[in-house]
């Protein structure tokens, strides 16, 4: 028995296929991440799971209830945070929280333990209108409101988009804490580095899931050897490497370019030679373990080639 069971979901907007045969299961107590670029279908999928949208085809069970037939039961037990801040901007922090507590038939006091750690951070501003909060604060308030009825499942649609890196890290810490309290979390993000923080991730692109597994397994399945290349002129280096005849892929990655070879094993000497000839005499080449981002890039590129 899984907390979320999705099989063969289709959803189209006119001629655009937003979701094309999506199936996956989410286990109790895990953080399940959906990673994918903008327009991949993440929001559509979440709107179906939160009963805001009806799928064209396929079944979805949330907490054992069908999203179409038993939507009322689902709404009581799921917490949803939409991608866009959707609390009342003209109500204060406290009023918003109280309002959502009341319509879920509970009170702030009753579930205070659950939100305490997050709420104390915004409590000094509880008399401030939600519209006047900073981005990170808004997000914390939205999370509090989504948690106030002690949901079994938390569905977060791109909660960290447009939030600064420090607040993003804080936010993930909060999610880890919630997971420890037994709440299952379904989260979507366009940031690939956040994938490593999930228990399992699904890569989604053009309405299709490419791979669903734990971050470790996804990395382990990656067979290519990755070389990190660096030199004085990184942009020129990128251009030169793109022209190299054995290049399979080259992507900027922090202070290095991640390079993979078309052959089974790259020939370091040859590569060094090629770079020397092209004016990169002081280049540095290291081998580096694959990151989850490398794996996704690879998977997405493979998919594009198939198409």
């Amino acid at each position, binding site marked *: 028995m899984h907390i979320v069971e999705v099989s063969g979901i289709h959803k189209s907007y006119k001629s655009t296929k937003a979701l094309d045969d999506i199936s996956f299961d989410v286990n109790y107590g895990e953080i399940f991440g959906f990673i994918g670029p903008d327009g991949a279908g993440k929001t559509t999928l979440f709107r179906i799971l*939160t*009963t*805001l949208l009806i799928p064209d085809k396929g079944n979805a069970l949330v907490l054992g209830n069908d999203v179409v037939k038993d939507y*009322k039961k689902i*709404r*009581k037990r*799921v917490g*949803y945070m*939409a991608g*866009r*801040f*959707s*609390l*009342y*901007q*003209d*109500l204060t922090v406290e*009023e918003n929280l109280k*309002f*959502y507590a*009341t*319509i*879920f*038939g509970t009170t702030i006091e009753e579930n205070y333990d659950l939100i305490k750690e997050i709420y104390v951070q915004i409590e000094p501003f509880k008399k401030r209108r939600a519209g006047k909060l900073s981005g990170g604060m808004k997000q914390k308030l939205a999370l509090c*409101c989504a948690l106030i009825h002690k949901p079994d499942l938390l569905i977060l649609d791109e909660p960290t988009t447009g939030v600064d890196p420090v607040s993003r890290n804080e936010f993930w810490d909060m999610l880890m804490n919630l997971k420890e309290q037994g709440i299952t979390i379904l989260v979507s993000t366009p940031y690939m580095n956040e994938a490593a923080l999930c228990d399992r991730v699904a890569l989604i692109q053009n309405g299709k899931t490419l791979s669903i597994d734990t971050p470790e397994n996804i990395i382990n399945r990656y067979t290519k050897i990755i070389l990190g290349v660096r030199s004085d002129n990184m942009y020129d280096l990128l251009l030169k490497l793109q022209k190299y005849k054995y290049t399979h892929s080259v992507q900027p990655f922090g202070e290095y370019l991640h390079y993979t070879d078309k052959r089974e094993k790259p020939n370091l000497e040859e590569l060094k030679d090629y770079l020397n000839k092209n004016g990169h005499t002081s280049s540095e080449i290291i081998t580096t373990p694959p990151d989850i981002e490398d794996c996704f890039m690879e998977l997405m590129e493979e998919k594009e080639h198939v198409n």
Partner: protein
Amino acid sequence: MRTIRFILRKEFLQIFRNKAMLPIIFIIPLIQLIILANAVTFEIKNITFNVIDFDQSSYSRELISKFTASNYFTFNRSSFSVENSQEDFRTNDSKLIIVIPKNFEKDFIKTGNSKVQLLIRAEDGNAAVIIQNYSTNIIRQFNIGIIPEWQGANTWKTPPMIDITYSNWFNPQLNYKTYMVPGILVLLVTTVGMFLTGMNITREKEMGTIEQINVTPIKKYQFIIGKLIPFWIISLFELAFGLLVAKIIFDIPILGSIFLIFFVASIYLFVVLGIGLFISTITETQQQSMFIAWFCMIVFLLMGGIFTPIESMPSWAQTIAFFNPVAHFNKAMRMIMLKGSDLSDIHQTIYFLLIYATVILSLSVWRYRKVS
């Protein structure tokens, strides 16, 4: 119940936190009543007129002095060329030209028949008709005064005449304010009810807050009641405020029962709020809902008998007006306020409004489910 109470509290909190709200509630009715009630009148004064008197006789001069003596007309200038005089039509200096032909007096004495030409500027048709009526009235009076004068010489008997006298019931002085103010109160209640409801729900759509509400176990009827009741209360308050202003400033007669006015208004408001709610279900932004509400308002008001009587419309328009809630409410308001009608006199209006409210509310509730 607890949920509805809390939703209502939240709505009122938001409504009164909106800075535009208090002016809307207090200033708009004052301005509408004071300006509109004083401005909207069908009387025309200071009608400027030109004279072309080819006769230059004592009769012609007497006729012109009748015009100048009246409160409604102001003499502009006199000339001897129609073309020259018509220049003033173009420059808006004159609204009426009276042309008195040569031998006006002579013909009158000889044959008892004479002609006067009235040229009226008619880009505003209503005004032209009124000017025509005033003028013919003056000429008729002139006629009555002049007949015995020349008949006296001939010692004929005065021809038998029927003397018509008027008595205007329910508004003896034909005071336009008495007639307009109930209509303006109707306009006021309709504006507030329809616009505010429509915009309030589309605002939730625009801000995305409806998304968060839709994932909660909140029931549809709770949400809709929470949206309608505040504006129902505000509109009724608005009516009370308007009636108070009407009584204090214009001393408008309120012959019927105040309780009945509010009873009819409270039913009528469900129609108006229902229309507002329906508009909000078919629009996505406040701008769209505003535009559609405005369009409905214009049609309802112009065909509602507030400014022009429904009886003067062509019969097809009267059929349309029958389905116009504003027309029914307006009629009931005037009947209660000016005539002191009671429940039995307006029971048909009440039935109509009840049916209308039921239909429009069910329609919008049904539509609302489809969107969420």
